[in-house]
């Protein structure tokens, strides 16, 4: 649909299609960092998200299936991740376990270089991507904000490119908006801004830059009032998306009056 015809944004006028699945919400909320499952459930409901990330960890009878059951109860699709993996080998095994456990072939692929930055290791990430695509996974690749690497991942067959705005949990926002724009301009799969979002304006900026969706967790789950921040993010993503489709005005070096200059009072003409 032409953006000029869009009067409002919803699943009909502006669907978000990823890995062959249509979603109405462009906000993907991670579950990490919530202080309680009740807070998480409340934030998820307010956010309107239909897709949320989960980690794959040892089963313990004490915490048996709580998160999985919570997602099932709220009709939220789980997107398992490979958080905590430093090698392609570990990430592939984690993805295989996630597919068995959650009965999904979607995987958010994270292969981390070091614990200090939590930034992706490009070589291990690429290697794991190749293996998982070959095994039929729909790979959501968490990557650096590097247009060249994003292109390689796209060529390797990922379902979505997920560039980091800033290191995970840092709340620093989008450190290199130009690179995100470049990734968006070259992508033929969805681009989901992932990591670094600190507050609502960061999420809006991601959408204004042309990202198809935003994934965030800490900004909501670690906020003083998680459900209220979830609402802020929901609105920011919608506003940013609308602004992107509406088309921002070009930046100018000088002012351009918005009031007419014709018909101005004679006594004031000298002022110009």
């Amino acid at each position, binding site marked *: 649909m032409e953006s000029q015809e869009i009067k409002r944004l919803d699943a009909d006028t502006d669907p978000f299609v990823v890995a062959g699945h249509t979603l109405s919400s462009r906000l993907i909320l*991670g*579950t*990490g*960092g*919530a202080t309680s499952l009740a807070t*998480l459930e409340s934030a998820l409901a307010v956010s309107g998200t239909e897709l949320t*990330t*989960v*980690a*794959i*960890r*040892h*089963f*313990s*009878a004490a*915490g*048996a*299936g709580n*998160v*999985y*059951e919570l*997602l*099932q109860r709220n009709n939220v699709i*789980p*997107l*398992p*991740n490979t*958080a905590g993996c430093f090698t392609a080998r570990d990430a592939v*095994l984690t993805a*295989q*376990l*996630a*597919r*068995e*456990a*959650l*009965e999904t072939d979607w995987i*958010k692929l*994270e292969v981390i270089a070091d614990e200090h930055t939590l930034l992706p290791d490009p070589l291990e990430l690429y290697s794991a991507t190749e293996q998982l695509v070959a095994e039929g996974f729909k790979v959501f690749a968490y990557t650096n904000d590097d247009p060249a690497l994003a292109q390689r991942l796209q060529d390797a067959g990922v379902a979505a490119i997920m560039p980091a705005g800033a290191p995970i949990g840092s709340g620093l926002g989008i450190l290199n908006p130009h690179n995100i724009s470049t990734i968006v301009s070259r992508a033929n799969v969805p681009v989901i801004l992932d990591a670094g979002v600190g507050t609502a304006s960061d999420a809006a900026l991601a959408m204004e830059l042309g990202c198809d969706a935003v994934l965030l*967790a800490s900004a909501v789950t670690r906020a003083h009032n998680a459900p209220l921040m979830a609402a802020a993010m929901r609105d920011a993503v919608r506003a940013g998306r609308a602004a992107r489709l509406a088309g921002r005005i070009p930046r100018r070096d000088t002012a351009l009056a918005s009031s007419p200059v014709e018909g101005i009072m004679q006594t004031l003409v000298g002022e110009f």
Partner: protein
Amino acid sequence: MTTINITFNSQQVQLSAGTSLREFVSSQIGKELDTDSKAVDGSKLGVAAAVNGAVVPRSSWNGKVLEDGHSVELVTAAQGG
């Protein structure tokens, strides 16, 4: 009765010899599993198992007999990401 020792999620566990992966998982998650390792109550399990670092598909749990020294990992969804 002969017993075996396995490593389960980084803990040492003693089992009766001849225990299948299906029986072991069933005891851990507290759900009765049929021979295809589906929950008898119809619920989703939400777990996956690996033995010695390789995923064992649910359909193979019944035929997978645990042996002394095996390392078993059972995982599920947790908050994260």
